[in-house]
């Protein structure tokens, strides 16, 4: 697990005290709203459609049970008893009051948490593979690199006022579970031909109103050069990124307008100025950080113990849950458990305080006290013994957390939309629920297989609709919501931006149209093909024909 060092603790404590005084000055008028707004945003506090909203950073989606219990306490004490997991692995509270926020931040600080860099034109909370440290398909645990970036980017004075926000994601697996190609900088930990571990650096990706897949700026960067090289990229962006137009200010626009070759040359030129590597991290420091993420004390176990297999054979619900929600662990006899936060009656990603406490208790009992949040708006218990899965499943069932739909058509990424967001143009949560309801038959859902539907309530694309197999964008005209459809997006290592099919639909028409496309896919698919595979083979036209049949 990551942990604060003495500097983190001091920085956070000082920031809480600062913000308390800032709130006092705002309430008595010494600070105007114009003066106060950037200060509250620097601590993750927004003013949304109905109320303030507090966004709390969860570094690379890693939580301890103690932290999750504190988040539950905060949900009860300062909010309405629930939280919302975001597509950047953070948690948001929808209803805090300004007068309470200093105390809220103080309670967060007690468990080494805060809202820094969850807003504003700075380097945002670094995201990573939620299976990090547990999966067998990674080259190494990406969390030490993510933690290094957290320490480097926290209140980095040179990069506190970038042209626009800046998002970094890290993975160490060829199976991208962190959407690295849709980030300002995506980092893939790789091995070169000599067997050395280093970094594949991707730059200029992003979603929003101008979706762009990132491009390689350095195919292999030696490990010790990471921070200086990122510093060079950020400096080029800070200097040449556009500040005259907010909508053209992200690094993706600079890279696109400059061209990747010229951009790379500019970065290399800046990088040459940085030598000697005065900010490079020593191997000793890397080793110190890596030690935070040592494996837990696994027992020596066999894979697939008899009791586990026998429960699969005798309990169909358990077997289905294992099939969809369990991922392979690197340690024999262990499993990665995905906890779906996509039940039919809930906004995707929402979790009540009681459920948070339950997950924390289960993490203590079965997963070394560790929890992950995912950009898919779910949670994970990363290290569970296979022999414990039957009892864990029963406990999750009791808590309403045993939905067996991970990676399937009802596991929808969905932004808060017009129900909560001040920027939204249409609702997204009811659309997600209508689709989930339509495909709620478990047999049918399994027949459809892996499927990614992603919904955004405006062109800012917080719901990642550009990279959904089916992407849905909510818009509004003359007081009527309508929904534009994209097809062929992909959030995996084969990242692709979907294409718009044509005119939009009402919610009802949309769900019918999706159903027709899914039925068409089921009819047309080849052996082992997912929806996206069939789409890529056949192209948009036949899907468009069934979508617009009426």
């Amino acid at each position, binding site marked *: 697990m990551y942990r604060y060092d003495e500097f983190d603790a001091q920085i956070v404590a000082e920031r809480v005290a600062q913000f308390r005084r800032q709130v006092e000055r*705002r*309430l*008595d*008028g010494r600070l105007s*709203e114009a003066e106060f707004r950037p200060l509250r945003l620097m601590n993750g506090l927004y*003013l949304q*459609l*109905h*109320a*303030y909203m507090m966004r709390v950073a969860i570094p690379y989606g890693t939580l301890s049970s103690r932290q999750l219990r504190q988040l539950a306490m905060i949900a009860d004490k300062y909010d*309405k*008893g*629930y939280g*919302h997991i975001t597509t950047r692995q953070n948690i948001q509270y*929808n*209803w*805090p*009051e*300004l*007068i309470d926020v200093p105390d809220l931040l103080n309670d967060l600080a007690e468990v080494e948490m805060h809202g820094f860099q969850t807003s504003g034109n700075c380097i945002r909370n670094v995201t990573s593979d939620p299976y990090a440290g547990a999966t067998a398909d990674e080259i190494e645990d990406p969390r030490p690199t993510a933690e290094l970036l957290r320490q480097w980017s926290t209140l980095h004075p040179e990069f506190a006022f970038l042209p626009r926000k800046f998002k970094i994601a890290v993975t160490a697996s060829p199976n991208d579970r962190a959407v690295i190609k849709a980030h300002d900088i995506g980092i893939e930990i790789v091995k070169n031909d000599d067997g050395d571990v280093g970094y594949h650096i991707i730059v200029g990706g992003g979603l929003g109103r101008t979706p762009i897949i990132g491009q390689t700026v350095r195919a292999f960067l030696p490990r010790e050069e990471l921070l200086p090289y990122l510093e060079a990229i950020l400096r080029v962006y800070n200097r040449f990124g556009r500040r005259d137009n907010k909508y053209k200010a992200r690094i993706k626009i600079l890279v696109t307008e400059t061209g990747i070759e010229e951009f790379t040359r500019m970065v290399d030129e800046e990088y040459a100025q940085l030598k000697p590597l005065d900010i490079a991290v020593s191997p000793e420091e890397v080793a110190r950080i890596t030690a935070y993420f040592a494996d837990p004390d696994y027992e020596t176990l066999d894979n697939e113990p008899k009791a586990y297999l026998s429960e699969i054979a005798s309990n169909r619900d358990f077997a289905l849950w294992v099939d969809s929600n369990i991922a392979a662990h690197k340690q024999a006899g262990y499993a990665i458990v995905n906890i779906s936060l996509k039940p039919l*009656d*809930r*906004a995707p990603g*929402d979790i*009540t*305080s*009681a459920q948070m406490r339950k997950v924390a208790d289960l993490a203590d009992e079965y997963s070394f006290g560790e929890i992950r949040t995912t950009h898919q708006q779910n949670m994970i218990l990363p290290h569970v013994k296979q022999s414990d899965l039957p009892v864990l499943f029963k406990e999750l069932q009791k808590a309403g957390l045993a939905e067996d739909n991970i990676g399937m058509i009802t596991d929808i990424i969905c932004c808060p939309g*017009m*129900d*909560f967001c*001040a920027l*939204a143009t249409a*609702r997204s*949560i*009811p659309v997600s*629920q209508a689709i989930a309801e339509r495909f709620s038959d478990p047999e049918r859902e399994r027949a459809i297989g892996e499927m990614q539907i992603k919904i955004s309530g405006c062109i800012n694309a917080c719901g990642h609709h550009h990279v959904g197999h089916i992407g849905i964008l909510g818009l*509004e005209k003359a*007081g*009527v*919501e309508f929904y534009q459809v994209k097809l062929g997006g992909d959030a995996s290592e084969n990242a692709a931006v979907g294409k718009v099919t044509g005119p939009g639909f009402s919610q009802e028409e949309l769900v019918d149209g999706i159903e027709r496309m899914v039925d068409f896919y089921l009819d047309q698919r080849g052996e082992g093909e997912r929806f996206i595979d069939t789409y890529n083979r056949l192209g948009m036209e036949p899907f468009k024909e069934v979508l617009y049949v009426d």
Partner: protein
Amino acid sequence: MSTLKHKGKGPQSLTANELREGLNVWMTEDLTWSRDFKDAMTTEDPDVMERMKHRGDTDEADNLVVGVYFIDIEPETGLPARYREKFRAKGPSIDTADLVEGS
């Protein structure tokens, strides 16, 4: 607060957010604020609107509310004209808070 689509013609109400609690409020006939849109004063009278604006600006200066602005009201329904403002008035169509015991 965005006023991009505000036409400023026909019936108007004045809205803001409470500074301390953050919740949406609308100005009432006695020039105070209510969290319930049903209490909102709606008028086309320029003199009344001027008084509303003055009170809103004063309350903002006194740090009671933030982001004061007029909204268009549909004459036929009495509801906010702009889609976004309808949502501000009626609240989220789904809130997990409704599923939380004791909420």
